[in-house]
């Protein structure tokens, strides 16, 4: 009999990610559609249930409706339970001191009653916007074995954008000696995976300190390390990606269509769960050419699709081309249209014979983990916001951002220069984007 379940899991899923541009404005990064049928948070939630962790709070704040609708009562993860299950923890009004969550630590502090009521021995703090598979039960076991106040998971440092990561220094025994957030230059070989197992009383004691601040890393974890608390590193060896930027989101999706995908979605012992939609099977037409792609239910493919991810209900018309692209739910690619390196949000309509992006046969999808330029422009991607319409016959240059809800009238010309931004109700502005090294040439 385990009278008190020892672990409460809290998933941070409230952040606003400006770097996701039009993709991230209408939804928090955790709710981003991913991999043909998933939302990013499905990985974290599926990891939880596969690890036997079924008491989960999800802290939401920014644009949560998409996420709330997705999670519902947690049925898809078998988390609609009498004991435990999923709770959505949105900021609420109090008699005194009502505040939005001012940061990750503040969000936890504002939910201290949830943490205390759980009477958990450990608090697992996770981020909903990461793509990885991990057995948290093993993490908790090692965390207990070390009798650690905090065990933080580390992964190999990605080659690019050190300013997006926290570099971890540990001694030979695995004890963490430093955690340097978002340095200008890479500060070592391993970074924090933003997966933290706290001993509950240590976390609460830190959160309650009057001098404490709102940020979990700066105001809780770094002081713990400095003051000599038992903080251990736990290396995670598998796939792990932060999808907080347009490029990283794109690359992680493209990893899935790689001939040898670094992340296996087909492992029957570790399936990623998500609420299924009642869509018909995908139908592939007689003239279609489909290769190296993921195709979801409700899709209809009449044209050519290569190295792309098609979400439910996408229609790809005859004589059209979709290459190196991500096309979300119910988007319509009209006959003769061509998409190259585009991320097309839900319910976008691409008109007949329109060309979005630039083909780059010699470009190919970047190999996973390969180095590249650290700006969105580096991959030459076009992003088309939710529900936008791209006029028939138009030509949209690479690196163009088409905002949410753009109509045909918002296009100043049939030809849109590379790096442009098209907004609803306004004329296109020439891109202020940095001169991108255009690798297509």
């Amino acid at each position: 009999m385990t009278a008190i379940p020892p672990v409460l899991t809290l998933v941070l899923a409230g952040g606003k990610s400006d770097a996701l541009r039009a993709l991230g404005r209408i939804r928090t990064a955790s709710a981003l559609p991913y991999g043909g049928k998933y939302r990013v948070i499905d990985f974290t939630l599926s990891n939880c249930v596969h690890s036997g962790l079924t008491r989960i709070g999800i802290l939401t704040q920014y644009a949560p409706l998409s996420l709330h609708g997705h999670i519902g009562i947690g049925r898809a993860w078998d988390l609609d339970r009498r004991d435990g299950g999923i709770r959505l923890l949105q900021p609420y009004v109090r008699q005194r001191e009502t505040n939005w969550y001012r940061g990750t630590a503040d969000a936890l502090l504002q939910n201290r009653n949830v943490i205390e009521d759980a009477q958990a021995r450990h608090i697992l703090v996770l981020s909903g916007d990461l793509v990885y598979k991990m057995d948290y039960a093993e993490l908790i076991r090692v965390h207990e074995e070390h009798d650690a106040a905090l065990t933080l998971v580390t992964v190999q440092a990605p080659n690019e954008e050190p300013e997006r990561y926290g570099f971890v220094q540990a001694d030979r025994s695995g004890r963490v000696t430093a955690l340097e957030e978002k340095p200008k230059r890479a500060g070592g070989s391993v970074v924090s995976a933003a997966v933290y197992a706290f001993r509950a009383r240590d976390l609460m004691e830190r959160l309650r300190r009057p001098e404490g601040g709102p940020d979990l890393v700066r105001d809780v974890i770094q002081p713990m390390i400095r003051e000599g608390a038992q903080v251990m590193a736990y290396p995670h060896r598998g796939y792990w990606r932060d999808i907080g930027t347009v490029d990283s989101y794109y690359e992680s999706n493209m990893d899935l269509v790689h001939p040898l995908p670094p992340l296996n979605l087909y492992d029957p012992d570790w399936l990623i769960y998500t609420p299924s939609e009642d869509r018909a099977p995908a139908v592939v037409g007689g003239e279609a050419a489909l290769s190296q792609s993921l195709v979801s239910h409700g899709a209809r493919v009449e044209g050519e699709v290569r190295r792309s991810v098609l979400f439910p209900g996408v229609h790809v018309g005859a004589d059209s081309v979709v290459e190196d692209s991500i096309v979300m739910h119910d988007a319509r690619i009209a006959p003769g249209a061509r998409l190259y390196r585009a991320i097309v949000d839900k319910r976008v309509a691409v008109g007949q014979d329109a060309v979005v992006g630039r083909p780059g046969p010699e470009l190919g999808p970047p190999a996973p983990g390969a180095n590249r330029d650290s700006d969105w422009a580096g991959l030459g991607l076009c992003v088309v916001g939710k529900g936008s319409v791209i006029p028939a016959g138009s030509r949209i240059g690479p690196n163009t951002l088409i905002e949410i809800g753009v109509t045909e009238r918002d296009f100043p010309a049939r030809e849109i220069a590379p790096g442009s931004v098209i907004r609803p109700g306004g004329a296109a502005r020439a891109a202020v984007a940095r001169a991108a090294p255009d690798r297509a040439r």
Partner: protein
Amino acid sequence: MSFVSYAMILAGGLGSRLCILSEKRAKPAVPFGGKYRIIDFSLSNCVNSGIFDVGILTQYRPLSLRDHIGIGRAWDLDRKRGGVELLQPFQGWAETDWYRGTADAIHQNWTRVEEREAEHILVLSGDHVYHMDYRPMIEAHLARGADATVAVTEVPREEARGFGVVELDQDGIVRGFLEKPAAPPSGIISMGVYVFRTSALHAVLREDAELDTAHDFGRNILPALVRGGRVQGFRHEGYWQDIGTLDSYYRANLDLLRPDPPFPLEDLRWPVFTPSTEFPPARIGSRAEVRSSIVTHGSIVNGIVERSVLFPGAVIEEGAVVRGSIVMGETWVGPQAVLDRVILDKRVHVGPRARVGHGTDMTPNRSCPEHLSSGITIVGKETRIPEGATIGRNCRISANLIEEDFPGEAIPSGGVMERELNVAH
């Protein structure tokens, strides 16, 4: 109360003409169209028509159907009031027994109808593929005050031999009902979709229960009601397919692949619900070619697939060719294997370079030539076809065979493989 809120679906049939597809499951539980079971169409028609109280009469091998339906969640039928209930034969203090026929099945469960105090009920079959809004039919039934309303559709006259042929007068009243006539007077047939006035149905059921009949709706109940002169026909426009034979099963699946499909598989106003599997999206490899086919979540295609239906988790390896075939869930087709006009049941394993549905010899099947003569070869659940094996057309390969069960030489067209016999003959 004069609206119809209760439906009973007849789902107990043996379906012997579906050969080994219904060897281990009732016909309504046979997989169809990539992700469905046949009964999904009737059940989805019910909920899309606003009927959320459904009894399913089962008898023959109900386990697969029971697993599929569960508590009815996929159809939103896990409800406090109404919902879905499987009605399997049971023992009681009064005379009860196995269902002697479709009419007897409903008669034995009559308390279910009485409890609802329904003036009219809907009776359906679980083995038809169609989209139908039952509400206009119910309205017509109520408007006319009929004892029964029978949905009818038209098929070519020669095909009507397999159905109940309905004779309508100019007012739409049914004047005659001939079950499977040798010489059909017309192609107007009953779809096995009925609205009954409960009292009229009960009277006929009670009478029939005492007689030595087949206790069958088509043979006995309908003709008895027709004699009363208060049965009308209701014409259904649109696709309807009875999945009675392997040929009709095969055709109905492949109908979905036509450039102008007879009904849209994806109609967001009329969704067909089914319990979803947890598989990832279909993965199409870099050397794959897929044309005129249906692919589902969890299928992985690295070979060539044409005019075929792939169910969840079907894996087609590199160099394999699948043409005009139905490949059910979690089946593996090895490298360089070739399938032509083949139905593979779930979890079949086709060894590398095996050829199934091979050659031009169209010899009908030896043991059931009447059901297996159009060139379709069928392989039962979980059978493992050895590497390099050759199997002709019109063959019937039973379930659960392993490589060692197969003879060294090719299995010619019309062949039968069964475990007991252990040899092709």
